[in-house]
């Protein structure tokens, strides 16, 4: 197998990249100055060497603690629980949340053999029990599995005397009501608020 084929095969293993796109990426790199390809390979090596899970929250980190956990300006009494580390980025991009995070590493899924022990729920309970946390915001996905995970967390955390809240669900911003499915409208109706 040639070097081109090996690189194309490696690219094709990445999510969202098929064989044709992988070959196009390889040829693009070959057309560009050599330094660009070396910079890309250096960045990949650096990420592989330095990025690891944050010891406190499970987010991506370059040292023992991630940027959020080591930031003294964050409100550590507010804890947002997400399924995966990339969900942290989605919430951070809003610029509306100043608390800290906890990454579960998935959601309850009996059919996949994922129970509470397979997630970082014991560590979450340790944090809720030992840190001065006043509110846990459960930001798991709005799927049946994400909802069941949220309910499990609520049942487990509420007896510890900590307020548990859930992200609101409803009509996506900018969408026409006419085109929204019945399940979403029903959720929005159930979660309506007084104006």
């Amino acid at each position, binding site marked *: 197998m040639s070097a081109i084929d090996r690189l194309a095969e490696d690219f094709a293993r990445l*999510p969202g990249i098929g064989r044709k796109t992988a070959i196009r990426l390889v040829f693009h790199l070959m057309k560009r100055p050599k330094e660009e390809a070396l910079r890309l390979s250096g960045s990949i090596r650096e990420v592989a060497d330095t990025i690891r899970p944050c010891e406190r929250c499970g987010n991506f980190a370059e040292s023992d603690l991630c940027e959020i956990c080591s930031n003294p300006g964050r409100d550590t009494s507010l804890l947002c629980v997400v399924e995966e580390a990339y969900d942290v980025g989605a919430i951070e991009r809003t610029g509306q949340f100043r608390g800290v995070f906890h990454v579960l590493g998935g959601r309850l899924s009996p059919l996949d*053999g994922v129970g509470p022990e397979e997630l970082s729920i014991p560590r979450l309970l340790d944090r809720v029990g030992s840190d001065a946390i006043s509110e846990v915001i459960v930001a798991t996905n709005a799927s*049946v599995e994400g*909802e069941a995970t949220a*309910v*499990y967390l609520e049942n487990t955390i509420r007896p510890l005397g900590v307020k548990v809240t859930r992200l609101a669900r409803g009509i996506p911003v900018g969408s026409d009501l006419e085109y929204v*499915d019945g399940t979403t409208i029903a*959720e929005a109706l159930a979660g309506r608020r007084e104006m």
Partner: protein
Amino acid sequence: MGVITTSAILLRSFNYSETSKVLRFFTRDHGVMAVMAKGSRKSHGRYGGSIETFVTGELTAYVRPTRDLQTLKDFSATRPRRPLAAHVLRFAGASILAEVALEHSGEGPAPEIFERLNHGLDAVEVVDEPELLATLLREVWGLVADLGYHPVLDPCVQCGRALEAGEMGRFDFGGGGVRCAQCAEDGPGPRLGPNARRQLRQMLDADPSVQVSHPRAHLRLLENFVTYHLAGSRPLRTFKFLADLLGQDDSGTLERM
């Protein structure tokens, strides 16, 4: 390529690429069917919130008989089951029904199994909490029986003699049912008292009045039966999930019943 429309229950989904999902349905007319739902991961996607685990609806798909993975054209939910997620034990019970149906994996028309599964999910969703385990046992045994694995409770699967009313038997998984006291000596399988046998018969007959004493012991019996006959001796993940939720404090056996 043809287009088919059938009633279907979504039992499982996997993310595929940045925007799509692979969905596994149990359909009324085609058994278990896997379809690709392009664009279904987008929040503004064409299917919105209708594609959720355990939902029942009308599935329309482009089908090529030579392919294992078909293409979703449309899905309209007729029976959303989001309330199942609001109670973790109900969620676990629905997952057991789903895994048993998926283990079957037949591709032909299966209207009776479809209706049984649909009814089972409805029952697990709405039953009062104290009756949840008994209802789940009844619905899963009913599904297992409809799939063609009805255990023989009388007569003895070894000698053919009818068991007496108070006779202690033994459940022989390999034999597919109960052995009498004489044939049960030193044999494998859990011992099964007359009450446990009666309750098991009621569950298999879908008798809604069944009162299940030691439901966790019945759950272990069901798990072992399903593992032996449907899953090729591979333990089913959903049973372990439910057992972990229930805890290990039940020492009840079916022998004393």
